[in-house]
């Protein structure tokens, strides 16, 4: 892993900014208490952060780097989600239910994060009203994104999904191997190549 130095202050400033975009009225002293409870961690490329069947109560914030979330169905890896900078990542289903986790989380690049235990996060939500609001907004934002992904797969054509991907994640086209993008879009690598040469 090539050493890229990203200071703790830099990471926390990035998280602070991201959370203020989600809930601009968060009380700043309370937000600082939350942000300062996060600790740094670094993972090399190809690192399996969490695997199917594991339980994890960590919440991660990606400061730099990239992960794919995939599941295995009928011996095939299906790419479910791509997590990049300024996004939060948690094994949400396992966290909420205590049931088995279906998803694998693997880094696609060297990845620099902040992390916190969900129980620590919750204790701060309960301590401060403005953080509890922030907590609800975070869940709403990720819930809406999950629903949107499901609806896009249901209602849009491969071509529409590709255009949407290029529009919202242009930066990922050169960072994520095409086979993973194809899998994420629910199309074959051949269809993806055809769409790439067309657009």
């Amino acid at each position: 892993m090539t050493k890229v130095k990203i200071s703790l202050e830099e990471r926390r400033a990035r998280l602070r900014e991201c959370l203020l975009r989600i809930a601009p009225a968060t009380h700043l002293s309370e937000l600082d208490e939350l942000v300062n409870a996060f600790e740094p961690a670094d993972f090399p490329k190809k690192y399996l952060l969490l695997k199917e069947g594991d339980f994890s109560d960590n919440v991660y914030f990606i400061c730099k780097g990239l992960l794919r979330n995939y599941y295995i169905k009928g011996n095939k890896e299906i790419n479910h989600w791509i997590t990049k900078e300024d996004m939060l990542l948690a094994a949400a289903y396992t966290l909420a239910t205590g049931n088995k986790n279906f998803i694998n989380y693997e880094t696609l690049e060297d990845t620099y994060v902040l992390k916190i235990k969900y129980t620590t996060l919750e204790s701060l939500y309960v301590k401060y009203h403005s953080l509890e609001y922030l907590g609800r907004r975070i869940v709403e934002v990720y819930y809406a994104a999950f629903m949107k992904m499901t609806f896009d797969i249901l209602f849009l054509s491969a071509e529409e999904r590709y255009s949407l991907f290029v529009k919202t994640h242009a930066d990922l086209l050169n960072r994520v191997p095409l086979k993973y993008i194809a899998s994420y879009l629910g199309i074959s690598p051949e269809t993806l190549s055809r769409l790439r040469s067309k657009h």
Partner: protein
Amino acid sequence: MNQQINIDEYKNHLKKYFLNVVPETNPDALNELLEHFTFERFAKKQLIYAAGSISDSLYFVCKGLIRVYYIKEDKEITNLLVPENTIVIGAYSIITGEKNYSNYEAFEETYLLKLNYAVLESFYSKYHSLEHLGRLLVEKYYTAFMKKTYDVLFLSAEERYQIFIKDHSELINRVPLRFIASYLGITQETLSRLRAKY
């Protein structure tokens, strides 16, 4: 229809629903919130929300049943069946302000308690205890949505059928089989085979 409608009793059921999610919710704040729910009655087959519309309210089913479905390639696909004492919400539309993807239909004569989401959020801001309840409600719906998605991805038709009869045994006799088959993502023939087996 001469049935007595007892709104206070329905509000009591709703209160129990909330307290079941967060038992320590501040009772005064909760009672104040409950006062703002209004009663609505939908005839069988009447649409509560149409796909393409914007939702602004949360509903609690007092009596009856709601079917949530979308239309794909001219076919209706049932994605949820919501019975009594459950909350139903056009979550995607409420959170994003964009249009609903699904239709919400009263599948039987249905009584609902309704609250505008902006009013609900004003109570979340007023009382930390209700904000906490609100966060856990959203987590609950998110989890249910993930579970439905993962069940379809990872479980066999037979496992999904078993979960359905465990969670919704009363619906087997209330909902025509073709809707249950659609909900489970299986053909009616597969459903008949599973029913004969269990």
